[in-house]
């Protein structure tokens, strides 16, 4: 097991390198640059800017410079937010996104799995149809509709919670709801499907035939097997959720890092995009590793050799 983890982590290094190189060179192919604006800067000013940020060097040299910085833990300065280093922005925003995303995913997991198992046990009953229809609506109604409805109804008309902002516990509620609705839906549906599968499998039937009470069969055998697809769904999903959502962050004015993915790309803020990409890449690798390890714990048939 430890050997397996070490091997996977060792394997992550070349993966990360490819991600860095890919993102670095892809980005430079995009038209526009970090200093293009509505009021075009005169060529000599642009040259000064390029020089100040080492953009006048050959590309490979810039790449080596970046890698070297990275090895020393330096993500470089942000081109757009000139007063901040990329690391300031990422490590300032990540705790916020992590908190929100963590609460949302935990909530989604509890509600989604419960809903899915419940629906599977009462397959084709009204409970099944109702919970699946509701969860489908959770998927069908996009974030950018749910969030404005929440702010309008709960924030503005009922005045129960603040419309936007950050700092107090009450600021968490609406964004968490907006973030976890689609996750609940996805998790519930995956759980239901694999639960139905598991319930009709031989070993569950055998356990039942042997006279094991239904409750025990389900809690001891079925659930364990049924959440396997959820685990492999959650691996990458968690990385996505804890790095924030641009829509939710923008609508509720939350200082997370989700919007840097979009803003960085749109502004051609090269270092910021690289920073969030590297950070995100590392998180994805880590989450996938954890998901795979969990898989082994939950499914005795899988061995790490």
């Amino acid at each position, binding site marked *: 097991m430890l050997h397996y983890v070490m091997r996977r982590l060792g394997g992550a290094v070349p993966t990360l390198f490819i991600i860095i190189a890919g993102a670095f060179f892809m980005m430079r192919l995009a038209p526009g640059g970090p200093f293009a604006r509505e009021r075009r800067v005169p060529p*000599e000013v642009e040259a000064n800017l390029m020089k100040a940020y080492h953009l006048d060097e050959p590309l490979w040299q810039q790449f080596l410079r970046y890698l070297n910085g990275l090895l020393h833990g330096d993500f470089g300065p942000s081109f757009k937010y000139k007063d901040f280093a990329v690391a300031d922005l990422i490590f300032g925003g990540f705790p916020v996104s992590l908190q929100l995303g963590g609460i949302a995913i935990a909530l989604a997991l509890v509600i989604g799995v419960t809903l899915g198992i419940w629906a599977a046990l009462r397959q084709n009953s009204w409970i099944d149809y109702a919970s699946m229809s509701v969860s489908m609506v959770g998927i069908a109604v996009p974030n950018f509709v749910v969030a404005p409805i929440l702010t309008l109804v709960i924030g503005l008309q009922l005045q129960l919670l603040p419309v936007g902002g950050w700092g107090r516990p009450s600021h968490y509620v609406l964004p968490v709801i907006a973030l976890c609705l689609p996750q609940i839906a996805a998790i519930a549906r995956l759980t239901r499907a694999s639960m139905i599968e598991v319930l009709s499998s031989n070993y569950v039937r055998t356990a039942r035939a042997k006279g094991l009470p239904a409750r025990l069969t389900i809690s001891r055998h079925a659930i364990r097997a049924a959440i396997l697809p959820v685990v492999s769904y959650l691996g990458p999903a968690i990385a996505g959720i804890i790095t924030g959502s641009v829509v939710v962050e923008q609508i509720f*004015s939350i200082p997370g890092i989700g919007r840097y993915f979009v803003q960085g790309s749109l502004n051609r803020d090269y270092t910021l995009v690289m920073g969030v990409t590297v950070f995100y890449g590392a998180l994805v690798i880590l989450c996938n590793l954890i998901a795979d390890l969990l898989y082994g714990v939950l499914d005795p048939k899988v061995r790490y050799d």
Partner: protein
Amino acid sequence: MSLMKRNVLLSALTAATLILASTAAQAEMVLHRGNGAEPETMDPQKSTGVTEANIQYEIFEGLTTYSPDGEVVPGMAEKWDVSDDGKTYTFHLRDAKWSNGDPVTAEDFVYSFQRLVDPAIAADYAPIADPILNAEQIRKGEEKDLTKLGVKAVDAKTFEVTLARPAPYFLGLIRHNTFLPVHKATVEKFGQDWTKPGNMVGNGAFTMESWTPQASMALAKSPSYYDAANVKLDKIVYYPTEDISEEFKRYRAGELHITYEVPSDQIKFIEANMKDEYEAKPYLGTYYYVVNGTREAGSKKEVREALALAIDREAIAEKVTGGSFLPGYSWVPPGMIGYKTQYVSFKDMPKQQRIAKAKELLAAAGYGPDNPLNMEILYNTSENHKKIAIAVQSMWKAIGVNATLNNQEWQVYLDTRDEKQFDVARAGWIGDFADPVTFLDLFLSDAGVRNDAGYNNPEYDKLVKNSFGIGDPETRLASLQRAEQIFLNDLPIIPILTYKTKHMVSKKVQGWAYNNLDFHLGRYMSVQ
């Protein structure tokens, strides 16, 4: 019994919070302001946008500054003398202090002005200093010696600027936020981090208390400000508000006192429900379509005029933007003091006649039903740009022009525009200061990429450039008026709308006044 107890407890608690809340309200007067986007930098010389300027004017004060209604009023300079040739300005500084207690001196201004043109700082806005002696040479790297810039500290309280050419608008120009003074020792001590709360030293009415990127920036009243006695606010909190419809909701929920923008879709609702909180007044900006003069169709004057004639500006201003813009018939927007607004020739022509004339002109240029004119409208992603482009498309259809729409993401759009890979492109320009020159020098034939129409008319160039040397304001403005008349006759661009400043201002706010540069300093405001 227990229920009663609980009720008593509850009411006691409520009372306690109420008392706490009211004492807090008495103790602190806080203004909450929406500010569009996250500011890119708090370093005045490095900044580019209105978002940054709004906050910097609270933290710093220049030689001259804004009155509530936008007049040029003394700032750090108590008074000034201008030489007879209009080339030397001598500013006499008042006794003012930086927020760390140091006196504000002429040396501070020398340092800050030099910083603006220093190639090592690479300020985007460096060209704004071009009227100052040697500024252009220094920023271009032709002159390496920063001290050759035409600025001088005669003594600690006297600051002298020598210009390369007379610029009657100079006192307004130096109000631009890139001319704000910075504290040399602080900048040198902290480097890039000097703008962080705790490090930052300013000379304005407020100081930076906290800054959480993408969330808020809190400013606190500065006790060392020379006019602190008249500053009523204890605190101003600026919020980045990128989503304007959510900003509006936060305003309605009472979380903001002043908004940065007003969503045009909501204007009907606003006029029905909260009309007296809605502030929409003319702004010094023009919304226009650039015609690419380097392409065949765009190079024909008949075509450009026909396209301009076919646009129903009143319909766009009223129906499409909900009255959040004004119909625009000029390049230099109305409202420049002393300047007579110039208009396109067809301003007062009835709609039917305009369309008939447009068709005639198109036919004269060789376009008609057998040979329709195809035009692509380039615009960047934005709800308003999209709506306006769709409307223009249908208006051009009426004169037989097949227009297609091309929406590009901002950076791609800028690139396409700079490469001149468009037929017609949407653009906008907001004046940096209240003088026609900030509009007219854009289309000089040697203005480089900024002249995106590729306009080249020697007569126009001559009139605009001559005005640089004229010291007498009236003669100078007359020369510029003639230039704009030529420009509007050639129509390298099609003016469509004049911008309005749009804000929701709570009735609790006192001291807010309209001005067409749209800067509203916290030192004049209070909250009830």
